[in-house]
């Protein structure tokens, strides 16, 4: 393992987060003696990759082409080894309702939901549809774009009259909205890493904010308290770890993932969404989980790139 290219940036709404994630991972890998360059996804990328001939590419792109599988498709076309989930599984995991459906099929719990495109509201009129949503799912509700991360366009709605506004904010980020029943409970993120023994859950991280865990709370250190490991009983901790690993397997994910769950008052975890390119910034959850497990980030990232090179070369 000598040369790694980290892809960071892109044109998504999460460009800024991706750039920061990319720099952190690159620094950690460099610390282990690997030669790393960070490159944006732009018109010069393919010629750069042709020239650089990296051993492994790590797409640390959040949102849009980075997580929807399309950049991974291109890496496959170029026969380049890369870290993480393949294009098809990325595409499914990135689309929140599809991911929820898959994990539901695997016997996992996920809050009840509907998926509604903007065009439907146009055809049927907004209010009757929203009334039906509230009638069926009740309140509070979470409205979010079906694709995207960092809580962009996400609103927690307590009152029916606030729902139209939440829909407008959501549709500013994408054409399809996921509306799900908000489960009251403890917010938990469980990172999964594949080792020689298969996927393994890192200690769960518990998120406590003074409001919703929105963009502001995620990227302004201080507003949020993290508990790593989460303050869960051993039984519940085992349950959330199991859920994250099963979601990882059911969705056909590779190398690493992060599932966001909520644990209700009875200690039952519910799957919310999964990230195939979890954030790696200074305030991100994946690195916190790794450190809570006593793992050195450089060593862990090195193990991930080494393994993905070996695996994918073997299957080619």
């Amino acid at each position, binding site marked *: 393992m000598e040369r790694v290219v980290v892809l960071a*940036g892109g044109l998504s709404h999460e*460009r800024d987060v991706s750039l920061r994630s990319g720099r952190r991972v690159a620094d950690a890998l460099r610390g282990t003696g690997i030669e790393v360059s960070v490159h944006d996804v*732009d018109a010069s990328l393919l010629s750069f990759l042709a020239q650089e001939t990296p051993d492994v590419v790590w797409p640390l792109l959040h949102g849009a082409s980075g997580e929807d599988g399309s950049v991974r498709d291109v890496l496959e076309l170029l026969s380049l080894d890369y870290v993480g989930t393949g294009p098809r599984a990325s595409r499914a995991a990135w689309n929140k309702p599809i991911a929820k459906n898959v994990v539901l099929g695997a016997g996992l719990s996920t809050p009840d939901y509907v998926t509604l495109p903007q065009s439907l509201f146009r055809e049927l009129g907004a209010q009757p549809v929203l009334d039906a949503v509230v009638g069926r799912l009740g309140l509070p509700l979470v409205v979010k774009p079906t694709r995207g991360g960092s809580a962009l366009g996400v609103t927690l709605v307590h009152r029916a009259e606030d729902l139209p506004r939440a829909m*407008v904010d959501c549709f500013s980020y994408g054409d399809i909205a996921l509306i799900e029943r908000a489960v009251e409970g403890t917010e938990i993120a469980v990172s999964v890493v594949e080792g020689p023994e298969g996927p393994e859950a890192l200690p769960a991280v518990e998120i406590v904010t003074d409001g919703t865990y929105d963009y502001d709370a995620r990227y302004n250190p201080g507003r949020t*308290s*993290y508990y790593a490991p989460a*303050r869960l009983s051993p039984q519940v901790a085992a349950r959330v770890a199991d859920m994250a690993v099963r979601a990882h397997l059911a969705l056909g994910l590779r190398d690493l993932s992060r599932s966001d769950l909520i644990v209700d008052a009875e200690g039952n975890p519910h799957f919310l969404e999964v990230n195939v390119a979890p954030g790696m910034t*200074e305030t991100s959850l994946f*690195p916190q989980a790794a*450190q809570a497990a006593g793992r050195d980030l450089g060593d862990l990232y090195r193990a991930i790139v080494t393994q993905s090179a070996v695996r994918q070369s073997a299957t080619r």
Partner: protein
Amino acid sequence: MSTTPTHPAQPAASGGTRLDPWFGAYAERAHGMRASEIRALFAVANRPEVVSLAGGMPYLEGLPLDVIADAMQKLVATRGTTALQYGSGQGDESLREKIVDVVRLEGIDCHPDDIVVTTGSQQALDLVTRIFIDPGDVIVAEAPSYVGALGVFRSYQADIVHVPLDEHGLIPEALEETLTRLAAEGRRVKLLYTVPNFHNPAGVTLSVERRPRILEIAQRFGVLVIEDNPYGLLGFDGDPLPAMRSLDDQGVLYLGSFSKTFAPGYRVGWVVAPHAVREKLVLASESAILCPSNASQLAIATYLETCDWQGQIKQFRELYRERRDAMIGALSEHLPSASWNVPNGGFYTWVKLPDGLDARSMLPRAVTARVAYVPGTAFYADGTGADHVRLSYCFPTPERIREGVRRFAGVVSAERELVDLFGTSGAQDPDLTDVENPGPNLA
């Protein structure tokens, strides 16, 4: 990260880790300084695929870079030990002498001693606020006002009160009424902040008739005027208007800058101030930065000495006029449902969105459509302004401006449909009503 030791400054979080152990230690004035969703969205604005109508960056390709390179090389070769050394807190004397010539173009008659050189006029704003404002003091500012000034005022915990402007600039009657009301309320108004020429963001210019009236009102109420004038020489028609400072040398602090007429990379601005104020500004500046960059100052002095800077400004005026025309033409063609002013200089058009649209709520859609703008809320201290956007025409070529406006019109029309569908605009998140600071390249 999670292994960060607990520090006394860290509030008890019953075993949890705050990733910033100093969270409880920040001064109150730092509380508004945070990463925001809007700021993050601007991360894509620098990508070439995105037409940025957001930034206030001058078009530096218009500069004779080879000539400047020669002059800079000569400067370091012949005066390197001075240029790379500490300098005077007040600023290099040879540069101050040349600034006297620059401000004379706007009718200001001053002495080099009246001038304090600063690290961009942004530092001048900081120094002026620092020496005059105690927490809770009132600064009266136009509605809207330059986002960078609002950020400085807020960081000194000033209370910002807006006064409306119209197509002729700040409205004297409204100013008088506001100052009267504030006096009756027992509030202490210390400063009036105004951008009289080619206003950022409103694009308007304070009329010649209004200038003495504004000064008279300020004087009557004992309020010092900050005349922030980075764009004064970039007018498209006729000669520059007389600066307010040219009408009153005691009641006005004049802020000038080379950032828009030459190059912002040098970070050189200046203040023309009455004697006593200037002394305090120098002391404040020395305590903040010791002295402005000698290398930058001498580079600019060399430029002014060896290059046809007035000819360059004339070229810039032509270039920006063409871009203004492209912007206005494209708005007329693609966005008839909005309204805007036609600026006679400077960098910005201030666009009133069709009723019911929220400029912040539209921003993610604009990013998807590969066009960037600054939501009007950035230019108000009170959370209003969501019905406006600032579009700048200084940086993109006319062709890109037309393309950007075409994309922007598509965003507006999609948002229109959405708002009509749901009967409301979005983005009423109270977090988004704070002053947003979109970063240096959007200043």
